[in-house]
């Protein structure tokens, strides 16, 4: 009874409505005053009720906990009590000696593993960055759709990577093109959780390896979602994204990191400028060519019309989150807590991002006569993509130059693609595709002496990876287009994908101020 009364009082009479315009009331008690009077009793009652619940619980719980402790204090078996419970220190020493000959490396192993899983979490947060960036640079009528696609990609990416992606990505030295793997099992078994698993070059457990790489897989696919935003059909995109992250990414990645065809030619791609970013960028290019531009993007003379994003604060949050996550992306790609490379990578990554943001902002200022925030944001990402291939083999000065050049490249790439009739709402193709190429080549031009990067191998690698991604997209997305279409109808596009595909609005309390 009491609970029902409280609920009624709380839900129907808002407390905070104090009318300030005294002239209106002319002496009558305000609604708020009447409300307060009738609410005091229910408040008193509810307080008493909570007291009666909380105090006994508070008294009861310590009793419960004491009981559990009491139980664990007793020996677990009823065997003779000569075998005392091992101390915490003894348990630790057991862990160390289990490493066998590698016992000496145990502290480094644990530190590296810790860094690896933290880096995996940082890479994960890049999905939040992608989500907010894409939302910010597109129209509010498509926001739910973009968020849905991003949520789906990280989810399906992780699942497919566990089901078959990881083992396809890393089949072991196979020097070939394709080696399909099965589901991951207990990666801790058979020496998977010891220093011997990868030694200094992969200082983590099998599960650490898995989860770190799993986060990478989904970032490659999400690059495409930005380029196809605002007009792609949801079901078609979900199918394509599943195939891209589940099949194409591990197969193409296996050519380099999995010991495939690129492994023997010393192709240098530190954290994935090619196999992640250029892969995503060129897949995006293929999709956009099949998909076509947004309605209203180009007028009848073919001139580009701007379609401004609806929330630049969100776009900025997105880019800075991506920058933050990139510390895990590049930093984690050191694959251990090796202090030397780790410090260098963090430094070069930061400097390249900063340089990219500055150069893109300045160049957009010169070219467009006003500094463009969205270009500056793209510039920071361009710098990050540019350094991703070579963060561990360049010096700080070089990283600044790499970033400065990347910032310039992205501005001109955005302009060029726009002019060419390729509609890329967020600049994904320019940031990831074009600057991915730059990162791979920069690895050769700016390498610290003795790093062993060969220009021919770099060119071969980027051509293969970018080309494969592009061809995959053209073929698969093209097939999906033929079977079920890849684009929403014109009416659906104008109304917005949120209403058309999801029946939901992102901002139901706001009406659109313009229809564009």
């Amino acid at each position: 009874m009491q609970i029902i009364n409280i609920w009624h009082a709380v839900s129907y009479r808002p407390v905070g409505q104090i009318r300030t315009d005294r002239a209106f009331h002319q002496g009558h008690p305000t609604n708020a005053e009447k409300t307060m009077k009738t609410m005091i009793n229910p408040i008193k009652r509810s307080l008493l009720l909570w007291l009666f619940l909380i105090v006994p619980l508070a008294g009861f719980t310590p009793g419960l906990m004491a009981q559990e402790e009491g139980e664990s204090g007793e020996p677990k078996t009823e065997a003779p009590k000569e075998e005392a419970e091992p101390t915490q220190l003894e348990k630790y020493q057991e862990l160390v000696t289990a490493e066998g000959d590698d016992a000496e490396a145990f502290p480094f192993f644990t530190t590296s593993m810790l860094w690896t899983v933290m880096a995996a979490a940082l890479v994960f947060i890049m999905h939040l960055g992608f989500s907010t960036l894409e939302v910010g640079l597109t129209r509010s009528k498509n926001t739910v759709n973009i968020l849905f696609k991003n949520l789906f990609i990280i989810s399906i990416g992780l699942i497919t990577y566990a089901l078959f992606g990881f083992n396809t990505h890393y089949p072991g030295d196979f020097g070939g093109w394709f080696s399909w793997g099965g589901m991951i099992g207990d990666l801790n078994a058979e020496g998977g959780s010891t220093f011997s698993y990868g030694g200094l070059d992969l200082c983590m457990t099998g599960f650490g390896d898995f989860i770190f790489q799993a986060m990478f897989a989904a970032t490659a696919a999400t690059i495409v979602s930005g380029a196809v935003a605002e007009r792609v059909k949801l079901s078609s995109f979900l199918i394509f994204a599943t195939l891209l992250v589940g099949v194409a990414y591990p197969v193409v990645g296996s050519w380099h990191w999995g010991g495939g065809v690129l492994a023997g030619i010393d192709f240098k791609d530190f954290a994935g400028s090619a196999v992640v970013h250029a892969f995503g960028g060129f897949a995006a290019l293929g999709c956009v060519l099949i998909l076509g531009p947004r309605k209203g993007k180009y007028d009848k003379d073919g001139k580009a019309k701007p379609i401004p994003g609806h929330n630049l604060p969100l776009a900025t949050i997105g880019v800075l989150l991506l920058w933050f996550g990139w510390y895990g992306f590049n930093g984690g790609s050191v694959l251990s807590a090796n202090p030397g490379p780790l410090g260098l990578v963090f430094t070069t990554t930061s400097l390249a991002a900063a340089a990219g943001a500055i150069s893109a902002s300045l160049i957009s200022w010169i070219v467009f006569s006003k500094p463009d925030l969205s270009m500056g944001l793209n510039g920071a990402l361009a710098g990050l993509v540019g350094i991703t291939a070579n963060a561990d083999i360049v010096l700080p000065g070089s990283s600044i130059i790499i970033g400065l050049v990347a910032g310039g490249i992205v501005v001109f790439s955005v302009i060029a693609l726009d002019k060419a009739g390729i509609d890329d709402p967020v600049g994904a193709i320019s940031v990831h595709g074009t600057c991915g190429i730059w990162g791979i080549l920069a690895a050769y031009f700016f390498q610290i002496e003795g790093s062993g990067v060969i220009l021919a191998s770099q060119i071969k690698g980027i051509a293969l990876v970018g080309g494969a991604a592009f061809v995959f997209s053209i073929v698969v997305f093209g097939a999906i287009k033929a079977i079920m279409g890849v684009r929403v109808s014109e009416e659906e596009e104008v109304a917005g994908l949120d209403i058309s595909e999801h029946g939901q609005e992102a901002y139901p309390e706001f009406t659109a101020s313009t229809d564009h």
Partner: protein
Amino acid sequence: MKKIEAIIKPFKLEEVKDALAEQGLAGMTVTEVKGFGRQKGHTEVYRGSEYTVDFLPKIKLEIVVGDDQVEAASKAIIASAKTGKIGDGKVFVLPVEQATRIRTDETGEEAV
């Protein structure tokens, strides 16, 4: 009774409201609108493409007053909303057939 519709620059709203309050007129309805007259729009650039924004944000202020107050109210609005620069806006006066206060069912000039 007459309705005064004024299109004014948004940052002038507080001044206009205060000027009307001095006249004893404390009720009005305000909407955010877009429009242009002789004031041209401006060009913006977004990621390399230029576009003109013709419509500028304005505030539309609607107030219904008795016939005897129309002159004073209009003058108050014009004086407080004026900046002397292009785009200051316009004031329109329209006739009102009937007005009713919903709470008390008063009609006519008492309802205003």
